[in-house]
């Protein structure tokens, strides 16, 4: 028999009760941690959203429009040359601008469009021009992009949910496009329609809103120099989640007027049935002018959260563009026509 190590003295034998209690302790400890994991895991799964995507992939504009002189943004994000319509307020970070979006065609959470909009095919893309117009036609997007010089516009954007951003858009005035399209004398309104394609836009499989998304403007609002067709943001082409390849921007109105991924423009005599007004007519109207004195039925519009800031801000009439646009509504009750 080999030499065994010497046995420990019997005084060192662990008392049986302590030994069994230690096993009990370890068993209880393991069950506690297991329970904590199950409870904590279930709660996290039920409650917390997955974080927004890390990468900010905005397609470079050069790929979209080779000849474009893209306006330079300085280090602080301000435009190198400030246009007459630009605000000098601090830009909202590009990451926030491209990952915090309402685009229910891709899901109703703010991070959903950035996660899911990769299925949108922005080429080939045509825009059909119909209705009260001299020459109904179908325009290819790449042709449209050669018609007008691009401008940068740094605008405030105020969502009806009471948050806001400052966004450096790239585009051309809608008025220039309208003049070129020659609407007839019967045209009082312009209506825009978003792509209807539930394969490319999976959110359209759910009747959250009536698809396709429709928005519109009175013709004088559409012709106003502030109204923009945006094809880019932050010096790059629009990312899909912001309504690529082209969208509407109307800075003195709530953001839901900014119809995205436009495939049809129709000039009409009658006021368009814009999608949010159809979905909840007591809460959303056609005009949707930013107005701190007219609250949403369920929340106040008096203040807003500027994304990136801690303190809430007072909301300004017409989102601060009152000087430029209030005249459009001088003979209209903007409380009734909200």
């Amino acid at each position, binding site marked *: 028999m080999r030499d065994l190590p010497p046995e420990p003295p019997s005084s060192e034998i662990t008392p049986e009760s302590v030994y069994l209690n230690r096993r*009990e302790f370890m*068993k209880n400890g393991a069950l506690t*941690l297991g329970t904590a994991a199950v409870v904590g895991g279930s709660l996290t799964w039920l409650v*917390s959203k997955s974080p927004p995507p890390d990468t900010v992939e905005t397609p470079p504009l050069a790929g979209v429009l080779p000849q474009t002189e893209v306006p330079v943004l300085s280090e602080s994000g301000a435009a190198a040359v400030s246009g007459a319509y630009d605000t000098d307020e601090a830009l909202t970070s590009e990451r926030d601008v491209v990952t915090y979006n309402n685009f229910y065609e891709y899901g109703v959470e703010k*991070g959903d469009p950035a996660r899911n909009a990769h299925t949108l095919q922005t080429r080939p893309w045509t825009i059909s021009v119909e209705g009260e117009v001299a020459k109904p036609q179908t325009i290819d997007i790449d042709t449209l992009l050669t018609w007008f010089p691009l401008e940068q516009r740094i605008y405030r954007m105020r969502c009806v949910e009471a948050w806001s951003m400052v966004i450096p858009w790239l585009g051309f005035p809608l008025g220039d496009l309208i003049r070129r399209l020659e609407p007839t004398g019967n045209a009082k309104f312009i209506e825009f329609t978003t792509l209807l394609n539930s394969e490319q836009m999976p959110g359209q499989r759910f009747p959250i809103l009536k698809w396709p998304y429709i928005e519109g403007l009175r013709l004088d609002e559409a012709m106003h120099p502030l109204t923009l067709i945006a094809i880019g943001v932050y010096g790059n082409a629009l990312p899909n989640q912001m309504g690529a390849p082209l969208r509407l921007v109307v800075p003195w109105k709530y953001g839901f007027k900014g119809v995205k991924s436009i495939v049809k423009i129709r000039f009409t005599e009658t006021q368009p049935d814009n999608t949010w007004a159809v979905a909840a007519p007591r809460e959303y109207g056609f005009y949707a002018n930013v107005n701190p004195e007219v609250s949403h039925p369920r929340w106040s519009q008096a203040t807003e959260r500027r994304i990136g800031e801690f303190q809430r801000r007072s909301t300004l009439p017409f989102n601060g563009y009152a000087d430029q646009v209030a005249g459009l509504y001088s003979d209209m009750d903007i409380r009734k026509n909200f």
Partner: protein
Amino acid sequence: MIAAAATTPGGTRRRGEPRPWLKPGIFLGGLAPLAQLALRAGQGELGANPIAQIENELGLTALVFLIASLVCTPARRLFGWTWTVPIRRELGLFAFFYAALHFACYMVLDQFFDWGAIVADIAQRPFITVGMAALVLMVPLAITSTTGWVRRLGFRRWSRIHQLVYLAGGLAVLHFVWRVKIDLSQPLTYAGILALLLVIRAVFWFRRPRGAQR
């Protein structure tokens, strides 16, 4: 439950606490939502509107705990699960804890002590009115959650008062339904669960033995 110490391979059973790991486990797990919010806040992973994100997650956590606390008694009656009974208080207190944090987030981070705006909100925005009512209702429930209070009030009176938790749950669900913009799927799911729990409770109330102690 035999209280005597039985020496088994599993160890010595102590009297009184058949599952001593259950409440501490729920306590640790119940803090997970708060911990992961703090972690994501520190990493800047709360999205572009972190205040709204925190506020919404705290509120939803409170609702989940409230509903969980309401599942305990039906689960015992339907499946005979006795382990749900001692955890009911802990779940309810977690609901109150997260509801209070949700309101604190609104008061401090969202409105930053703008008392005028807060009072106006509570008075004029129905979804905030009912949310506030739900929270206020939970205060006496939290205070009287101890066994000392059960003794002080007597079990019958204590039970009657604590039936208010169903009202608090209904108001909380209404707060959620009225808050969302247009997609009612999540709040209506919780409304459905609450309604089911109420129906189960009603069924047992109607089928209670007549003439017996209630």
